[in-house]
């Protein structure tokens, strides 16, 4: 059992190498047997890596402290769910998780398409196997999670040794979100490999048309959604665990996770131009390439230690491997593009600057500007040190100054884009479509100013948020009215019908609405308040509308940690509202103290209490209270984005009916009899937008 994990990892590496070799040979010789064999080897990688993961988990659950990785990241008293999550607590295990998720994606991509696209899939299989080979090289030869602890016996012979107990899991990771946050983020990072493999495969094989885009649309959305969930869960974890009252610090590792999400967002928008009008083929291919390379760059930043971050793993030489791999990927992408660039010629040109196409173009430009600004800020300290020899810091003020105007412009485009027609929009249509959303936004701004809203960015964000929400509403209502008038149904069921007829479009609007909620939540930051105070039992602290009475301090002892806990009663307008119990936990195995924040969350504001500990000077307990407005909107917005993405991935209802001949006839008759203009336009827009 002890060598099963490392053995299966080695076999997985060999299978991946074989998949590359057999795949290339199959493509060159056009022998189906070879390409099938390569595909099966690619799928076998998943089985073998799964076995390795299962072995490592088994070592964690059986407290096998002869394994160096288990001894470094677990201990006997660790709860079982954290033993499970300890798999990805360190460099080696998290790389194994990465490889496993990648092999899972690869398995499903190969399996689902096993009888489809015979010209394309061999290329896709080779690219997927190539990426897997790189990570399996790291797992086997650079950062193996199956290293054992060894020591010399009295006769000088090296033998496997075991610790009596492990060093324990990093206390910062002992929080429920750590069980799901890294897998979600890695599902995003690794998921972008699938569209990358299809794009590169289509380019190499000169696969005709936009098929690779249709094939990978759902894969891209899944990866994009997971990446977004991972980023948001990370922000929530920082908020709930780190105890500094914030959720985003523009840390290099946070930025690294955001970058592929931004380019992925750009791709999801620009891809529609290729589908609808056959435009921007070069742009889309490079967006997918860039997104994948940013995923690798992000992994490198987290693991190499070249930028200082509270989230990074310890400094190691593993970064050189990633630099080499990044260079290789770039060269392969560039050579493939250069040799096949004629294949990417566009079918159509832009007819008007006031059109849906141009709004997508500007949306992409703004997203890439945001991506570039974040990347530039993240890497500039490294560049500056290389050029001037001086270390510099790039803190939040830089990112806020550069990115807030970009983000607000992007929010504006979120509202403008859907109101523009494909190809060209007339001035009359502009006036008609924009009048009441714009009026509503301005009215909201006036009301906010009257109520004393004075922060410019927050005010602009509110105005744009209302504007975008009204444009989304108008889109739903306008479409639903047509259906309601034609079918005689009520408006609400017509909204449902409309949404299910074009899930991609209306799911996209739901995603936009979720983003508006997130923006509104972020706009609350300038209104944050905080106060720190030494509090004895019976003393009170006042913040905003709340009075916080200190009732007690006590100790909670568990096998994993000793906790000092404050019992606080929160009053509002003299009435007792709730009890809060912020803690400080001293983790026995790692000998580290961490805060457990108490948060009372409401749509309007969060009351966020940190038990900062006892004052080092006089031993008095210190409470730090924060009042953070609108934070809940961010988490709720994230849920709406996920729901919208799920909706956009559903097949259109009409498409399902087309599969049934009897209903197809009925549908055709209905359209012909009732609303042929609508039908004609609907047929033209069948691909959705």
């Amino acid at each position, binding site marked *: 059992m002890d060598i099963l994990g490392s053995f299966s990892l080695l076999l997985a590496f060999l299978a991946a190498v074989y998949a590359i070799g057999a795949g290339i040979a199959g493509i060159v010789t056009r022998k189906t047997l070879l390409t099938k064999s390569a595909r099966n080897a690619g799928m076998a990688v998943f089985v073998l890596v799964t076995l390795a993961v299962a072995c490592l988990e088994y070592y964690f659950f059986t407290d096998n402290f002869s394994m160096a990785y288990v001894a470094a990241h677990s201990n006997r008293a660790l709860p079982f769910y954290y033993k499970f999550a300890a798999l990805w607590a360190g460099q080696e295990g998290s790389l194994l998780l990465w490889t496993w998720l990648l092999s899972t994606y690869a398995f499903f991509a190969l399996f689902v398409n096993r009888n489809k696209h015979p010209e394309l899939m061999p290329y896709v299989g080779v690219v997927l196997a190539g990426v897997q080979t790189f990570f399996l090289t790291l797992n086997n030869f650079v950062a193996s999670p199956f290293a054992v602890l060894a020591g010399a016996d009295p006769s000088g012979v090296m033998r496997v040794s075991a610790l009596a107990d492990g060093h324990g899991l990093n*206390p*910062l990771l002992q929080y429920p979100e750590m069980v799901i946050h890294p897998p979600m983020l890695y599902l995003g990072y690794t998921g972008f490999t699938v569209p990358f493999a299809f794009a590169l495969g289509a380019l190499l094989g000169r696969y005709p048309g936009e098929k690779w885009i249709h094939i990978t649309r759902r894969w891209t959305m899944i990866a994009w959604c997971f990446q977004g969930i991972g980023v948001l869960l990370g922000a929530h974890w920082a908020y709930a665990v780190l*105890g*500094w*009252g914030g959720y985003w610090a523009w840390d290099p590792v946070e930025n690294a996770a955001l970058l592929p999400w931004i380019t992925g967002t750009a791709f999801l928008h620009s891809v529609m131009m290729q589908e609808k009008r056959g435009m921007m083929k070069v742009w889309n291919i490079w967006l997918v390439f860039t997104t994948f390379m940013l995923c690798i760059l992000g992994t490198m930043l987290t693991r190499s230690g070249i930028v200082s*971050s509270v989230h990074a793993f310890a400094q190691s030489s593993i970064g050189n491997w990633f630099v080499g791999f990044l260079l290789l990927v770039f060269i392969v992408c560039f050579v493939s593009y250069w040799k096949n660039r004629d294949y990417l010629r566009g*079918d*159509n*040109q*832009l*007819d008007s*600057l006031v059109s849906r196409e141009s709004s997508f*173009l500007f949306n992409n*430009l*703004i997203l890439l*500007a945001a991506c*570039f*600004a974040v990347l*530039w*800020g993240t890497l500039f300290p490294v560049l*500056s040190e290389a*050029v*001037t020899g*001086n*270390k*510099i*810091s*790039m*803190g939040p*003020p*830089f990112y806020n100054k*550069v990115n807030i105007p970009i983000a607000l412009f992007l929010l504006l485009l979120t509202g403008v884009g859907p109101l523009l*027609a494909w*190809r*060209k*929009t*007339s001035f*009359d249509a502009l006036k008609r*479509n924009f009048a009441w959303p714009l009026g509503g936004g301005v009215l909201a701004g006036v009301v906010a100013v009257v109520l004393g809203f004075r922060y410019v960015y927050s005010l602009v964000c509110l105005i744009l948020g209302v504007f975008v929400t009204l444009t989304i509403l108008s889109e739903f209502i306008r479409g639903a009215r047509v259906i309601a*008038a034609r079918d005689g149904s009520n408006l609400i069921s017509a909204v449902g019908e409309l949404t299910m007829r074009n899930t991609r479009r209306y799911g996209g609007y739901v995603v936009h609405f979720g983003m508006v909620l997130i923006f509104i939540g972020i706009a609350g930051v300038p209104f944050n308040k905080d106060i*720190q105070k030494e509090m004895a039992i019976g003393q009170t602290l006042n913040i905003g509308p709340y009075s916080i009475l200190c009732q007690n301090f006590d100790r909670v002892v568990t096998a994993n940690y000793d906790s000092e806990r404050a019992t606080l009663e929160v009053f509002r307008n003299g009435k007792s509202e709730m009890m809060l119990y912020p803690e400080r936990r001293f983790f026995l195995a790692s000998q580290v*103290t*961490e*805060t457990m924040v108490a948060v009372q969350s409401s749509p309007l504001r969060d009351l966020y209490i*940190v038990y*900062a*500990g006892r*004052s*080092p*000077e*006089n031993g*008095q307990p*210190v409470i*730090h209270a924060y009042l953070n407005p609108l934070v809940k909107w961010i988490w709720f917005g994230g849920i709406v984005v996920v729901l919208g993405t799920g909706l956009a991935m559903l097949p259109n209802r009409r498409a399902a009916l087309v599969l049934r001949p009897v209903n197809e006839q009925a549908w055709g008759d209905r359209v012909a009899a009732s*609303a*042929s*203009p*609508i039908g004609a*336009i609907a047929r*033209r827009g069948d691909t959705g937008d």
Partner: protein
Amino acid sequence: MINGHLRGVRFHRTRAKSLLLAFAMLAFVLQGALLSPSLYAQQTERGKELGQRVKCMCGGCNDSATGCNHTGGSFSGPCDTAKGMQKEIDERVARNESDDLTLQAFVQEYGPTALIVPPARGFNIAAWVTPVVVPLVAFVLVWVVVRRWRQKATLATASGPQIPAEFLARAKRETGRDYDE
């Protein structure tokens, strides 16, 4: 004379009381300063603002001097280094030193990394200029490409099936929006 003597005694008593009161107040303030330095709060908004522009140089966090909050330590609040930096900022603010001079003092002591963002001088100008210039150049490039596309588009026939004008007019009436006008 007696009255004058009594007035003198009263005066001495009053002065003694005042001194005692002043001493008590001083002791109270000192006690506050000595016993709760962990809650060292900067007195002025300017001091706070400057503290946010300087990085805590303890090496264990990436926070500003004002925002330092050591998680994982024995106390989750400003560390001694941050408190020392806050204090120095307040002293310089009290002496009415300029912001630049105050920030420069930290740069002299710790190097350029003491500033939370680099000043727009020398090579560091690139940090501020590039995120503005590159998107602008990209914008101009896109504009040029779009113009070229539009010129070509006027020569090309629109793709896709032709839809009769009356269909489009009816669709416009029913949906309230334009389709390929």
